[in-house]
């Protein structure tokens, strides 16, 4: 099924974004990305020693795959740090795209909404296409949209927990209240069923890393996630049935044999 979508002016076919961290090896990472069909992968920046040759090996591997790169600002605790890291990312990765992460709490790595909004405003002013990673808070997401974000990335659950969608009601609300904003669920997805559920709710795409990278077989899990995303999307487009509180037979009742009906009296006997 061809179902192209647009992300900051780029047309994509796959609705699965894949992270590049925590794989058993670069070769497995590459195979997982290829198997998933993902067209966008996330990367980051870190201090390197000269001996690491500028992160040459991992970056060569990622860039050779040919995916579009979405750099993140993981690890930043303030808007100032995030803006600086975003500027550095733009130069080395040669893209205006930035997955904006500003952590506010160390325990669950929860995004700081105040610093996030501040950084978003500054980065948009600097010409970035911002993908803000946020909680599912409606008002924060509305504010991000008002600032000019075409894409917003609410979490499903805290990063790396694999708990799935802890607040599906909020995601449904976001979908209803921000109908023209591209929503990507980022973080918390642990199983293909979680990804499918997000897509069934009308979420436009998902970003997954840990659930694929730390599976016993990351390549197979990448394919499973890809299939789940497609299944969920197709289900959303197909229009799910309405739920009912009581059972409703799917097989026609008229003409049921043997055990339900009493013998009908013939007209001549009455």
């Amino acid at each position, binding site marked *: 099924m061809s179902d192209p979508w647009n992300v900051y002016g780029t047309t994509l076919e796959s609705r699965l974004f894949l992270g590049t961290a925590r794989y058993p090896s670069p070769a497995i990472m590459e195979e997982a990305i290829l198997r998933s069909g993902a067209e966008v992968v996330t990367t980051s920046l870190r201090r390197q020693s000269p001996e690491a*040759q500028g992160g040459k090996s991992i970056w060569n591997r990622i860039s050779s795959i040919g995916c579009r790169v979405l750099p993140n600002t993981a690890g930043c605790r303030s808007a100032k740090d995030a803006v600086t890291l975003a500027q550095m990312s733009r*130069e080395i990765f040669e893209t205006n795209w930035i997955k904006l992460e500003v952590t506010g709490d160390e325990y669950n790595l929860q995004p700081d909404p105040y610093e996030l909004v501040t950084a978003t405003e500054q980065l948009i002013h600097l010409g970035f296409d911002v993908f803000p990673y946020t909680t599912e808070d409606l008002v924060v997401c509305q504010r991000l949209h008002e600032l000019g974000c075409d894409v917003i990335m609410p979490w499903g659950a805290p990063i790396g927990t694999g708990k799935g969608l802890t607040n599906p009601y909020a995601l449904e609300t976001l979908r209803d209240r921000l109908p023209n904003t591209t929503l990507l669920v980022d973080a918390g997805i642990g199983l293909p069923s979680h990804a499918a559920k997000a897509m069934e709710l009308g979420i436009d795409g998902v970003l997954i890393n840990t659930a694929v990278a730390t599976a016993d077989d990351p390549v197979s899990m990448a394919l499973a996630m890809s299939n789940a995303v497609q299944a969920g999307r197709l289900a959303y487009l197909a229009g799910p049935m309405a739920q009912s509180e009581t059972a409703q037979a799917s097989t026609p009742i008229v003409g049921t044999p043997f055990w339900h009906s009493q013998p009908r009296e013939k007209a001549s006997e009455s």
Partner: protein
Amino acid sequence: MRIVVNGDQTEVGSEELIAILQSLEFECDKVVVAVNQQFVAREQWPNYCVRSGDELDILSPIEGG
């Protein structure tokens, strides 16, 4: 002159940013630089001089989620 490079106190023999990067054997085309938490764009490098005590962050691409 002593500066801080990626968190480590470092003695350098030049104040010129490019000379410092080269002396520390960084591959200049594969790194990005911030000085005192401020981004220093590549086009600024030829004229950029570091002061004693400055903190340099020299970053490279890595995998990420």
